[in-house]
């Protein structure tokens, strides 16, 4: 893929990406193995399971919760979930009547190490245009029909703060383990377009 003969490239997104790769490689700018290594980081290391572990810890450890809300970066650093696009992490605390939702109306900023790369719909013109203006309507269309007494608070990622949503722990999960709780936290929950529900999943591997 990296040695593409130039007469095979169409003027398409794929063709342009491979043309730029070819030029940068020929100039000697791309270190051997860098792309494979960085792609592995993007595909495997940056994952919403990371943010899920952070949330589960905050649900079960009051001191960690306090740290997460006071200094999200330090809290995530305990798990190693910082670095590129995770330099200044801010956790947003939901309550039963407050739903925080994250967007980047100007481009696509996201806390990569905690949430993983932003999904296509998050980067869509529709989400970027509409969320700041009609947040509750957008959530309902996405499938999260909030009760009328819940206020939506939209966080537009216009500078270098990188947000993650700390959802409300669902009722009936008092005796769940951190691992079981983490399984409730999806990427959509961390972005804030969905709320975790204990009924959504069979509990752990016991199928309770």
């Amino acid at each position: 893929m990296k040695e593409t003969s130039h007469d095979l490239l169409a003027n398409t997104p794929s063709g342009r990406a491979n043309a730029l790769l070819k030029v940068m490689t020929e100039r000697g700018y791309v270190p051997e193995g860098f792309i494979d290594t960085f792609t592995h980081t993007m595909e495997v290391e940056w994952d919403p399971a990371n943010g899920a572990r952070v949330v589960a810890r905050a649900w079960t450890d009051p001191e960690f919760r306090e740290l997460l809300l006071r200094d999200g970066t330090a809290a995530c650093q305990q798990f190693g979930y910082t670095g590129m696009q995770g330099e200044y992490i801010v956790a947003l605390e939901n309550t039963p009547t407050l739903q925080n939702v994250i967007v980047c109306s100007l481009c696509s900023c996201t806390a990569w190490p905690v949430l993983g790369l932003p999904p296509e719909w998050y980067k869509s013109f529709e989400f970027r245009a509409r969320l700041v203006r009609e947040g509750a309507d957008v959530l309902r269309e996405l499938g999260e029909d909030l009760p009328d007494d819940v206020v939506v608070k939209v966080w537009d990622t216009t500078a270098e703060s990188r947000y993650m949503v700390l959802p409300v722990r669902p009722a009936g999960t008092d005796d769940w383990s951190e691992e079981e709780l983490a399984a409730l936290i999806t990427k959509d929950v961390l972005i804030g377009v969905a709320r975790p529900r204990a009924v959504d999943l069979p509990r752990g591997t016991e199928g309770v």
Partner: protein
Amino acid sequence: MDGIHDLGGVQGFGKVPHRINSKSYKPVFHEDWEHLGYSLTVVGGGLLAAYATDELRHAIERMSARQYFSAPYFDRIIVGTATLLVEKGLITQEELDEALGSHFELAARSNNPGRPAPARANTAPFEIGDEVQVRDEHIEGHIRVPGYCRGKRGTVLHRTTVSWPFPDAIGHGQQDAAHQPTYHVEFSAKALWGEGAREGSVVVDLFEGYLTRVEAAQDSLAAQTDGT
């Protein structure tokens, strides 16, 4: 700049193409070239240190409306990256055209030098709970104020403990850009979208230089004016 990328609040867009929790989000990339978007821009902006992230954002903002709206996301990253590498002299348009086998369309050149942070500095940093107003500025170059909150009043929720280079300067390659904290400023939905808006709010992360303090006296006068 008041560009077509400034989409917040723009109407006429349809449903977001998603249903909650319907996807595993694996694999992360859906086409075999997509990983090159971020990989190559990290080479250019990170390893080569040829440009700052705000310069990449600005390059993408300079794409034509036709190109911007028809290009998929990672294609915009590729075009922005290629534009900057050409502008910085690290590669040439001719090399790109030859590698592609046809014309490689880049973003439009900027004829704007950017600007330093506003000189009328604040006497002190803002504190949590302060009422602030977004400056009613019309900046031709790069800026990180979404148009929907320009001139609007909000409340400070947080001041960052870290400072970053002022986007309007670093976005144009000014290496001496002043570093400033940013503020999480909460605007009521009604302040942004009119009295008919549903209860709610939007929090925007704004550099200190974008804000002015709302004095109590001014606030009171304005309230009288609004009520007339």
